């Protein structure tokens, strides 16, 4: 294998030039003729009954075209998983930021002014913010259910009691992973246009165009064909941009006014009504043998879903059991509870629960390694799953570069020497992770990817897919894959924006699935187009298609370079001979993943499993408590790297996000209100807080990924918090189990530590 013209080559993203020159039109830049601007009136109470809404004054304001409340919506409960949403609040509000009413006006200023004129009478209700309190009997009930429990997850294997008794070392700790915000560049946005037939076109920043369409059809009481979703370029998502009421409020306003309506969150709204990370309490107990064999794991997780479930229960489930396929645990006891609270609904954020659990597990493993007097790196290598193994949950590890990741990172970071040269305040820490490339447990209807390749008379190749490029570089990877198959340059390829009228039904971009699923889909489509081109050319050369090859923009008879025609020429002849029909290749790819068993959770959920090892080196200022990350090494098993430069970009981004989460990022919520809904006080790392990041790609060719590729999006961040926490432990001997590890916490802990000496 190898010898590719495109695959494995570092190429700048095909849309990078336009983006850096400010030419790209993002969703919030879109302008349609006659367009109105929508704004949402949000609850300022965490829990309250709506007694009365008076919007008469707002309606009378000059420039206001519509004011809508729940009365103007179908009021059917809906939701991507549990049907606990309504487009606008019906009878009561459940979090500060809940959507109460919406306004469309000739400009944003007028719309905002109108919001101030809407009078809402509320009757405040007792509210509950912490999931542990919300679980208790007698807690204020947030939805009509008996308890505030969204869902419970249980999974037991082996004989946990006996196993712990037999372990030489057992370590248990209580961890807390806090609520953090995805902080994409462009706040949530949409433009919705209702045409005279009542059909709605949604221009959306969404990671899941086809799935969103299904959810929205239900919410609006419309048949699916009445909804079209188009995905223009948009400014990042990191998991947050799935369904959101913002889009649906836009739809209602557009239906009312028969005008296109643009809705864009301001940053404050995005903090208070976005989809931040599911905060989790994690009680984790792990036991190992004297030889460092991991044997038993017991975990209890309580996650706060906020006022709507969104995907939180799937995220808690993932936190509960995904790591069991990183190491060879034999005995498991697992309990996960997802609980409603009167806070902003929480949901997907890079890592999808695995990031939360990886913090807990990898912190714990360092304590076990210490108790065993074992090198933490060796502990990971010893227990890590290898190529060809089947995990306790039936995950078939088609390729695992975990061991090589650990070795690379250890070697490149100077791990051994730095662990030995102990100096108080200076430390180095390591953490590993696994992940999926697509998650069958999440894609319940079907698993797969599809593509369409359309080649017009001029020879331009237009690639359609149903996934979603939020800036991660998916388009470029698809272009590379198609260019490789067709033997043409990237300049021949255009990747169409997703449009549910034209594009395949794609599951979308989540679970680190884009490259493997979308990539395999467009690869199959390109293959199909290639077969047709070969048939056309075979006729011209009076040979058989199998004797032809597509390379360097030419179609030639293998071994006879003089018998060749340019790609464009063959396309032109083909299109003209076929009455003008473009060459259209369609293709799909379906992996042999299975839905996990509902009870045992057994079943191979992903076609390809990426792994990683990251190492952080830190200096702790023991007088101020500030942590400086000095160096960062990240070795990732990505299968065959389609675009190494893009992968390094993903790794760097993930590490930066992880360092931010580890050390400073935190949504401060008091009585349900976010106190820091802006970038002045929601601090994230700046350029000076980021160390040099040394990325290494480990490339076992995966049997299922396109050209052997696996995903990278989420694993880039998963191990970062634990790597930093472990480095801090190495530096000052204090184990932090709650994120973020702020200077004040460090200083306080140092003082307590000294006192106890």
């Amino acid at each position: 294998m190898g010898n590719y013209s495109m695959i494995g080559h570092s190429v700048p993203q095909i849309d990078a030039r336009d983006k850096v020159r400010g030419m790209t039109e993002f969703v919030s830049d879109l302008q349609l003729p006659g367009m109105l601007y929508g704004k949402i009136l949000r609850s300022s109470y965490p829990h309250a009954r709506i007694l009365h809404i008076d919007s008469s004054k707002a309606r009378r304001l000059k420039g206001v075209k519509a004011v809508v409340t729940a009365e103007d919506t179908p009021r059917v409960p809906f939701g991507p998983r549990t049907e606990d949403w309504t487009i606008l609040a019906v009878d009561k509000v459940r979090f500060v930021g809940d959507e109460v009413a919406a306004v469309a006006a000739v400009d944003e200023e007028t719309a905002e002014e109108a919001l101030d004129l809407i009078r809402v009478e509320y009757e405040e209700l007792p509210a509950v913010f912490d999931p542990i309190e919300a679980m208790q009997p007698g807690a204020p009930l947030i939805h009509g259910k008996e308890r505030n429990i969204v869902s419970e997850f249980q999974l037991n294997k082996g004989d946990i009691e006996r196993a712990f008794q037999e372990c030489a070392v057992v370590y248990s700790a209580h961890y807390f992973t806090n609520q953090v915000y995805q902080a994409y560049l462009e706040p949530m946005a949409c433009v919705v246009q209702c045409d005279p037939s009542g059909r709605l076109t949604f221009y959306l920043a969404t990671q899941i165009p086809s799935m969103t369409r299904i959810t929205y059809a239900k919410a609006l009481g419309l048949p699916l064909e009445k909804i079209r979703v188009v995905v223009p370029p948009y400014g990042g998502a990191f998991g947050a941009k799935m369904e959101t009421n913002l889009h649906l409020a836009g739809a209602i306003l557009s239906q009312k006014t028969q005008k296109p309506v643009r809705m864009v969150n301001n940053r404050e709204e995005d903090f208070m009504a976005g989809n931040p990370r599911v905060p989790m309490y994690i009680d984790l107990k792990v036991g190992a043998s004297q030889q460092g064999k991991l044997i038993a794991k017991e975990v209890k997780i309580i996650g706060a879903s906020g006022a709507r479930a969104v995907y939180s229960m799937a995220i808690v489930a993932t936190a509960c059991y995904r790591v069991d396929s990183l190491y060879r645990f034999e005995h498991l006891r697992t309990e996960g509870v997802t609980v409603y609270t009167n806070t902003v609904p929480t949901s997907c954020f890079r890592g999808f629960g695995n990031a939360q659990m990886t913090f807990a597990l990898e912190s714990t493993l360092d304590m076990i390694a210490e108790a065993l007097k074992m090198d933490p790196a060796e502990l990971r290598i010893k227990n890590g799953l290898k190529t060809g193994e089947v995990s306790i949950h039936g995950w078939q590890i088609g390729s695992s570069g975990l061991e090589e990741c650990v070795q690379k990172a250890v070697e490149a970071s100077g791990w051994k020497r730095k662990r030995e040269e102990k100096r108080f305040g200076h430390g180095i820490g390591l953490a590993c992770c696994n992940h999926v490339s697509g998650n069958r447990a999440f894609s319940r209807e079907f698993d797969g990817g599809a593509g369409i390749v359309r080649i017009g008379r001029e020879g331009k190749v237009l690639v359609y897919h149903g996934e979603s490029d939020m800036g991660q570089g998916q388009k470029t990877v698809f272009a590379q894959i198609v260019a490789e198959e067709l033997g043409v340059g990237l300049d021949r390829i255009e990747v169409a924006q997703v449009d549910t009228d034209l594009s395949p039904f794609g599951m979308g971009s989540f679970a680190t699935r884009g490259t493997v699923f979308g990539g395999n889909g467009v690869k199959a489509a390109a293959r199909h187009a290639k077969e047709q081109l070969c048939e056309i050319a075979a006729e011209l050369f009076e040979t058989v298609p199998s004797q032809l090859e597509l390379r360097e923009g030419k179609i030639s008879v293998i071994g006879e370079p003089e018998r060749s025609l340019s790609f464009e020429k063959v396309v032109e002849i083909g299109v003209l001979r076929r009455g003008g029909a473009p060459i259209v290749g369609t293709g799909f790819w379906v992996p042999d993943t299975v839905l996990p068993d509902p009870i045992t959770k057994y079943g191979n959920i992903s076609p390809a499993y990426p792994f990683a090892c990251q190492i952080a080196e830190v200096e702790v200022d023991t007088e101020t408590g500030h942590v400086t990350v000095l160096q960062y090494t990240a070795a990732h098993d990505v299968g065959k790297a389609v675009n190494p430069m893009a992968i390094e970009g993903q790794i760097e981004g993930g590490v930066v996000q992880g360092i931010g989460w580890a050390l400073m990022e935190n949504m401060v919520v008091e009585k349900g209100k976010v106190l820091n809904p802006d970038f002045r006080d929601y601090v994230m790392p700046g350029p000076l807080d980021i160390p040099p990041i040394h990325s290494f790609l480990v490339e076992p060719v995966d049997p299922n990924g396109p050209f052997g590729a696996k995903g990278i999006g989420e694993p880039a961040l998963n191990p970062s918090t634990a790597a930093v926490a472990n480095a801090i432990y190495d530096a000052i001997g204090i184990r932090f189990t709650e994120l973020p590890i702020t200077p004040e916490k460090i200083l306080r802990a140092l003082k307590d530590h000294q006192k106890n000496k």
Partner: protein
Amino acid sequence: MRLKPFEFLNPSSLEDVFELLVRYGNEAKCLAGGTDLLVQMKQRRILPKRLINLLPLSELKGIHKAEDSLRIGALTRHVDLERSAFLEKGWNLLALAATKIGSPQIRHLGTIGGNLCNASPSADTAPPLLVLHATVCLSSLKGNRQIPLEAFLTGPGQTGLREDEILKEVILPKPPEGSLFTYLKLGRRKSMDLALVSVAVLVTINPERKTFEQVRLALGSVAPTPIRARAAEKQLGGNLIGEEAIREAAETAAQECQPMTDLRATAEYRREMVKVLVERAVKQSLGFPIPPTGI
């Protein structure tokens, strides 16, 4: 949030400005770089009906050197402070602080006048100006008056500026010969943050007797205004230079400030950090090695 509508007034002379101020009183606000003002307007914390644009007024720009003083026009931007050749020797302390403000974009817009008139306890130009014994020149139809900066800063967001006045310039006397100085700022990250605690120090020493002569210390973000740490100054002035003495003075500074707890830090942490930063700042100004505060 969007800006609420307001009237934009473009005066062509200082006299025009003064007249507009008299006419509109507290309905109008002066606009310099707008990096504080427009943010506050967007957040609806203030909603002036009119903005008086100061930017075209060349009288308020530039740094002028007289024989033994420096006059810095209110519209001088932080980036101008960073780059000015006039800010040498002790005056360089101000340039040093200017480099720690916000980001390059903010430093290209934000002005020294805006920083002082906004009167945030964390204003980064204030501690250096306090130890440089700055006075401010306030100007109105009635003429000019000069007051020490220390008297000008009266509380968070509050100054001695009358409704009809503007800040015209900042005047710095010559710093003592042989001034040693530094500015340390502790934030939650290494740039683009408001100070949790900041310390400006300016000292002179007697190298033969190994004593401090003059000692001036100012603290930011730990009181309703940036303040001088006078008790700590007194403790060091005239005394032998030594690590123990410095540590004790730092302790004193920590006692004499009045920090608050807010989202960014607790009062206890701030107080503790005054101690750490004062000690480090004094040592650094003397050329002693200190750990890289880095923030």
